[in-house]
């Protein structure tokens, strides 16, 4: 298999189509099977070993050539935040709960795909004509909402949907020139990046790819993936919120976390992980040398699979590289192709230049 540069000048139509399929597939934490099947089909001819572990992580190894190769783990989570059906009431409406930290202000008035057969459901709310201002001034809580699947009573509902079925927003992917709209960009963008990188691994490293499960409910999959792969270092490919909207009164937005269009977001630290300083230096210096835009994600909140990976075994030097995206954990996010492309080529460049000596203690 030749080591080649991933297409660094543009994201191909094929990659966009793949991202569309990935985002339009439902893979709520704990139910990543459909996403895993998609990923497996994309990577199986490009790797030396490929297996699914006990928790559902899809793990792949692509060995390089020559001596002194670093074992580099790249991780991207397959799961997304979503919902689980808890009950069908006598009239056929479905009660549900959130899985992961869903944006609860984005639920009302949306459509869902429910279960493996992707039954359509909608979350309507009481007409404005039947509510008063007091009621409308209170944010909606999930326990006050129901999903309507057009079923006439409980039995009819249970013929199609069962408690325990998972559901995601029924959002169709859309592209507007350089901008992508879709659900679950967090982290199907990372999954798509990892697939692309697996196809173009430089021979100087052993690449260990982990398509992980259950990141959104506590980085469960990443922990065991790292324990099994036992890498020398790890890079987590995720998405981070771009909260770069204008402030209502025109003042400066100082808490944007990351900005759309400003390139891949390199982590110095988040709530759970301090990035390995050698990796941080390597990524920022490489990005600067490449002369392409990059940004330091504002340190502070948030977690990625790095939270679990860097604690695995005897400790793993770790860093996260995210594609900035707006409106994550809601019905439709928004990302820029240029930021996605930038993150893939940055990681590829680092994989090509990284050497064991770089991880020696100072």
């Amino acid at each position, binding site marked *: 298999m030749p080591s080649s540069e991933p297409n660094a000048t543009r994201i191909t139509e094929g990659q966009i189509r793949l991202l569309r399929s990935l985002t339009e597939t439902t893979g709520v934490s704990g139910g990543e099977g459909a996403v895993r099947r998609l990923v497996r089909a994309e990577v199986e001819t490009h790797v030396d070993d490929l297996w699914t572990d006990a928790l559902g992580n899809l793990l792949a190894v692509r060995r390089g050539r020559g001596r002194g190769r670093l074992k580099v783990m790249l991780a991207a989570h397959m799961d997304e935040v979503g919902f689980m059906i808890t009950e069908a*009431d006598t*009239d056929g*409406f479905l009660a549900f709960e959130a899985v992961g930290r869903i*944006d609860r*202000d*984005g*639920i*009302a*008035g*949306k*459509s869902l795909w429910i279960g493996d057969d992707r039954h*359509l*459901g*909608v*979350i*309507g*709310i*009481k*007409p*404005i*004509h*039947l*509510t008063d201002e007091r009621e*409308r*001034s*209170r*944010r*909606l809580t999930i326990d*006050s909402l*129901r999903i*309507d*699947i*057009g*079923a*006439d009573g409980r039995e009819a509902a249970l013929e199609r949907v069962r408690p325990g079925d998972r559901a995601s927003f*029924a959002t169709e992917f*859309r592209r*507007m*020139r350089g*901008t992508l*709209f879709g659900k679950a960009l967090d982290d199907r963008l990372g999954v798509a990046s990892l697939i692309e990188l697996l196809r173009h691994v430089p021979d100087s490293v052993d690449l260990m790819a982990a398509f992980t499960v259950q990141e959104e409910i506590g980085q469960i999959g990443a922990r065991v993936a790292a324990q099994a792969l036992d890498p020398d270092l790890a890079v987590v490919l995720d998405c981070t919120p771009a*909260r770069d*909207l*204008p*402030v*209502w*009164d025109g003042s400066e*937005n100082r*808490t944007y976390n990351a900005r759309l269009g400003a390139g891949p977001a390199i982590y110095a630290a988040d709530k759970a992980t301090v990035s390995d300083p050698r990796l941080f230096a390597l990524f920022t210096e490489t990005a600067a040398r490449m002369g392409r835009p990059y940004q330091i994600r504002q340190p502070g909140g948030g977690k990625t699979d790095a939270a679990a990976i860097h604690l695995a075994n005897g400790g793993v030097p770790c860093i996260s590289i995210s594609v900035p995206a*707006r*409106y994550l954990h*809601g*019905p*439709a996010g*928004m990302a820029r192709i240029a930021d996605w492309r930038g993150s893939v080529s940055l990681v590829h460049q680092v994989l090509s230049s990284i050497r064991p000596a770089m991880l020696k203690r100072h």
Partner: protein
Amino acid sequence: MTDDLLDLLMDLLRLPGISGHEGLVAARLQESWAPLVDELHVDLLGNLVATRNGVTPGPRPTMLITAHMDSVGFIVRGILDGFVQVSQVGRFDDRLLPGQSVTVHGARPIPGLIVAPARAGLPEKIGGGVVPTKYLLVDLGLPAGEIQRVVKVGDSLSFDNPPRFLADDVICGHSLDNRASLAALEVCLKALAGIELKWDLVMAATVQEETTAYGAQSAGHTTGPAAAIVVDVTYGRAYAEPENESFPLGGGPTNAWSAEVHPGVYREIEAAAERAGVALTREILPSDTGTEARGILIGGAGIPLGVLSIPLRYMHNPVEVVMLSDIRQTGLLLAEVVAGLDDEFLRRLALD
């Protein structure tokens, strides 16, 4: 035969058409209705007025049937750093809006997403509360410079979620209020095809109900009906509606009992339902019906009218839900009323 209503309805549910911008809806209706009527025109306000002539010689009384074409939506209020600020046209619950996809009808149709900025970017007084429409933004994913070129204050926005079926007979989409009723009018016209009418029948698809209901007022004025029926939607029962104010899907239309409704027209509708075997429920609306009836009622010397409504869940949500059988039943009931119009009809309406 009546299954044809789906062609029209699915097309209508994909069209924009907020109050004041109903042209595309009128054009699509015109296409469907032209072969079914004798005369058809769009009046000065934008109402589509379609007439089927009766066969009785001499001046004939007119039955006017109306349903509004417009739907609730938004209008561009301003542009802030490449994001669009909007005002509501009609009424929405603010809590429905974040995450909703829309089309901005600017220099070209542009897809966008309604979003709530992070709390840190909002006035402190909002705190952890509901974000009012005033502070929501529409993100078009385009450079700020381009937005300045293609979007201007006053442009309209409509929901752009496509219609989808929840079950065989249950459809979900935006603007089912009141395009479900427009489909019922078509069912009626088709049922009357080939049947000679004694009266003239005027179908008016009206504009601007959601804002002022002036469309119906003008249609009532220019067509000079002897009697009228307004067709609209009512609260379908779901999980959060009070039982006494909502009606089950599949239970047929409601017949409003209200000060606005003429008791004679009410009884004629009831009798027609009986003849046609259509299930009909009395909907009690003590003062007004909340429809465009008011504008028609006070036209000329006063117009006796009735109001038929199709149960619809989640009114003014982007995911309104209607049962197709209710649309068909409403259309067939209207046809029965029209087919039954005779010389005695007006005499039966006379009040003592």
